[in-house]
C-alpha cells in the first residue's frame, strides 16, 4: 500500500514517555514497508534512532510536525513536559500503544504509592546495600555543580489526561500492519475519522476473530490458572475455565497470543462503546459463574486470584477508578 505523496513530505515524530521501546520497534518492524513511509515522511524527532535533542524540538515552529506518535505513559515531569511541547509543535498527536492510550503495564504502579515503589527499589530489595537510605532526588548538588533528574509523579497517567489527543492507536505494541494502514491514510490526505477516534484497530472484540472453537455454553463451575489445565489448544479458553480477556478487548491484533496458546490479556483496550474494559469483563464473568447459592459463588470467586490485576492489566490509569485508593 504505497502512498503517493503529491505534497511535500510529512514531518513525522516518534517519542516515548514511560515506555519500553516496543512501540518504536513496531515502527521498525514495518521492515521493507518502512521505505514507503520514509518516501512520504521525514522523521524529525525520534530519540531511539536519531540525534535530535529537546532544544531542537523547542526551536521548531508550532504545528510544524504533521504527525507525532507519542508512546509510553506519563510517569514523570519530563514525560509531561515533552507531551505538552509536542502537542504545541504537532498538527496531529496520536496516543500510540497501550501505555499512551490507557497507561499500559507501567500503569500497574497505580496499585501502589510512589513511596512504596521507592522503598522497594532503593531500600528493601535484597541486593541493595543502602544503610544511609539514599534515594534519588530531583536536584542534587555534586562537588562540581548541580544536576537534575525529572520528578516522578504520584500517579501514572495516560496521555489524554495531560494533553488533547487526536487519535488513539491501541496495542502492546500496535501491529505494524495497522500502523502502515493509518500512516497511508494520513499521507494520502484523505479525510480523517472524527477526532478522538481509535484507529488502527477493528470494531469488534477478539472473540470475533479468534480461531478457537466456541459454543454458546460459557458457564463455568471453576476458574483455573492457565497451568492448572492441559489446554487442548482448540477450545475457547473460557470454556476450559481459563479467563481470557478476549470478550472485552478490541480486535485488530490478529489474536496473536491465543494463536500462541496464551489467553488474551487485553492489550488492545476496550471495544467500541465501552470506556472501561475491566468493568465490562467483570460484568461478563459475573454472567459466566455457574452457581446461584452464595457459598458456591464465593468458591468460584475464590478461584479468580487477581481480578484487578487481570482485568486492568493494561488499562488501570485509563479506567474509571484510575488507581488504588491510598
Amino acid at each position, binding site marked *: 500500500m504505497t502512498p503517493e505523496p503529491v505534497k511535500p513530505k510529512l514531518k513525522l515524530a516518534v517519542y516515548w514517555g514511560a515506555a519500553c*521501546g516496543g512501540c518504536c520497534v513496531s515502527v*521498525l518492524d514495518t521492515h521493507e514497508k518502512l521505505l514507503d513511509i520514509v518516501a512520504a515522511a521525514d522523521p524529525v524527532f525520534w530519540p531511539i534512532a536519531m540525534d535530535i*535533542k529537546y532544544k531542537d524540538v523547542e526551536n521548531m515552529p508550532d504545528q510544524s510536525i504533521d504527525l507525532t506518535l507519542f508512546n509510553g505513559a506519563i510517569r*514523570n515531569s519530563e514525560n509531561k513536559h515533552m507531551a505538552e511541547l509536542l502537542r504545541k509543535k504537532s498538527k496531529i498527536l496520536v496516543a500510540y500503544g497501550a501505555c499512551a492510550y490507557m497507561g499500559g*503495564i507501567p500503569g500497574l504502579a497505580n496499585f501502589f504509592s510512589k513511596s512504596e515503589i521507592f522503598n522497594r527499589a532503593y531500600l528493601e530489595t535484597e541486593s*541493595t546495600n543502602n544503610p544511609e537510605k*539514599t534515594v534519588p*532526588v530531583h536536584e542534587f548538588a555534586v562537588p562540581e555543580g548541580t544536576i537534575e533528574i525529572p520528578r516522578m509523579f504520584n500517579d501514572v497517567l495516560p496521555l489524554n489526561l495531560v494533553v488533547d489527543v487526536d487519535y488513539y492507536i491501541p496495542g502492546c505494541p500496535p501491529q505494524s500492519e495497522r500502523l502502515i494502514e493509518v500512516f497511508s491514510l494520513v499521507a494520502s490526505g484523505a479525510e480523517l475519522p472524527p477526532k478522538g477516534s481509535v484507529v488502527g484497530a477493528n470494531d469488534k472484540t477478539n472473540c470475533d476473530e479468534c480461531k478457537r472453537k466456541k459454543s454458546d455454553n460459557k458457564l463455568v463451575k471453576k476458574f483455573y490458572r492457565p*497451568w492448572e489445565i492441559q489446554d487442548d489448544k482448540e477450545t475457547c479458553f473460557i470454556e476450559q475455565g481459563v479467563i481470557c480477556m478476549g470478550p472485552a478487548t478490541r480486535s485488530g491484533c490478529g489474536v496473536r497470543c491465543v494463536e500462541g496458546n496464551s489467553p488474551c490479556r487485553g492489550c488492545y483496550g476496550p471495544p467500541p462503546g465501552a470506556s472501561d474494559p475491566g468493568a465490562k469483563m467483570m460484568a461478563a464473568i459475573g454472567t459466566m459463574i455457574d452457581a446461584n447459592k452464595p457459598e458456591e459463588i464465593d468458591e468460584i470467586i475464590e478461584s479468580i486470584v487477581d481480578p484487578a490485576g487481570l482485568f486492568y492489566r493494561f488499562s488501570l490509569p485509563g479506567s474509571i477508578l484510575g488507581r488504588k485508593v491510598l
Partner: protein
Amino acid sequence: MKQISIDPITRLEGHGKIEIFVNDDGEVENAYFQVPELRGFEKFCEGRPVEELPSIVTKICGVCPGCHHMASGKAVDAVFGADPPPTAKKIRELFYMAHFVHSHIAHFYALAAPDFVVGPTANPAERNILGVISKVGLQIGSEVIKQRRIAQEIQALIGGHQTHVIMNTPGGVKKGITDEQRDDIVTKAEGFVEFSKFSIQLFKDVVLGNKDYVELILNGPYSLVLHSMGLVDGNNKVNFYDGKVRVVDTKGKELYKYGPDQYLDYVEERVEPWTYLKFPYLKKIGWKGFIDGQESGVYHATPLSRLNAADGMATPVAQQEYDFMYKTLGGKPVHATLAMHWARLIELIYSAEHCLELAKDPDITGKDLRAPLGKIVGEGVGIVEAQRGTLTHHYWTDDRGMVRKVNLIVGTTNNHAAICMSIKKAAQGLIKKGTEITEGTLNMIEMAFRAYDPCFSCATHSLPGQMKMLLNIRDHQGNIISSFERK
C-alpha cells in the same frame, strides 16, 4: 566550572543524559551519566499470579523482551520446582538464539558500523547507516533488513508474539514446532551463519585493516580495567540461556563461579541520589568508588566480558574467531572498550551456529512440552545473558503462587558504573585545555557508551544522517556564555 549537558542521549533504549563539568583549566573535572526514569516493576509485580510475570516483565524492554521472558520463565520454573523437558528447553533456546541474532545484527550495522565504516570524525551527515551503505553497497543494506526481519519472524513463530513473547509456561512452553516449521528454520539459520561470517569479515576489512582504528581500539581513551562477568556452561564456554555465573578478575583469573540461587552472596547494588538506576558491584570486594582496577568492586557484563570470563565458544567458527581476536589484541583478558563491538560479532556467529544446531536437533519437534508441576516451592531465581549483560530475576511467592516480592538486576544496570566511568574517561581524554570542541569530539564521547549497546537503533535508512547536538557552555551562575550547535 562549566557545565555541558547532553539531553537526551540518543540512539539507545530508554532515557539518559550526560552532564560534563569542565574546570577553569579546560580539563574535565567530572562527568555524570544519569538515568532519569523509574517505572517500578520490582513493586508492581507484587500481588500478581507468578505465572503472569513472564508476560509482564517483557514490557521492561521492547528491544530485548525475550531476555526478560527467559529469565522470568526460569524463575517461575523454580518457584514451581519444575524442570522443563529437553524439548521445551531447546525450543526456548532456539527462540533465544534468533533473538540474539536480530539484536546483534541491528546494533552492529546501525550503531557501530557508522563510526568505523564511515569514520568517528567524519561528516555527521554521512555517519549513519546510509553512509555505511554508500561505502559498502545497497545490497548489504537490504540484506541487513532482510536478516533482521527473518530473525523477527522466527521469534514470532516460536515466541507467539513478535515483540512481547508469550511462549513460557511454568515447567515448559505453550506451543511446539512442526516438521515444516523446523525445516524452514533450518534454512533461515543457515542464512544467519553466512551473514554473520560476512559481518565479521566486513569488520576485519574495514576496521582491522585500518591501523588508525586499531590504534583507537588499543590506545584510545576507552579502556577500563574491570572484572568480567558472564554465564558459562559446564565446559566454561559462553552460554546465553543457562549455566553458572563466572567472574574473572582484571588479569583473567577466576574469582567466582556460582549458580543462580547464590547471586545475593556475590552482587550488591548501590544507590546514588543523582540517578534512578542503581549500581551493582562485587559484594566480596565492596564499593570503592567510581574507579577501575583490580581493587575495585566494579565489573562489567558485556559481550566482551562474557568472552573474557569464558574459556571459549561452544561452536567451531565462533571459536576460531575468539582465538583470532585474543591473538590480535594481545591475549586475555581484553579491556579495550571498543573491542566490545568485535566480541559482539563473535557472539553473533555463535548465536547463528547454535541456532542451526538446535534447529537440527531431533528433540526440537518433540511433543513433550511441559513438566508436571509439584508443590509450589515459593521462591525462584532465573539468570540468563541478555544482549547487554547478565540478567537476574528473583521471585518470592506465597503457597498459592501469588507474588510477594520481586528483585531484578537487569543487563545494562550491571554496567551503569562502567558506563559512567567510560564517559568520564572519554571526555577527559578528548577535552583538554585549549581543545576546540568539534562534533567529532562529541561523537567520540558518545562512542564510549555506544559500545555497551544500550539499545539498537533503526537498522535502516530512516536516519537523516545528522547527529544533532547542542552544546551549551554555562558560567558558574548558569548563564549560557557560548553555544555550539551541530546541525
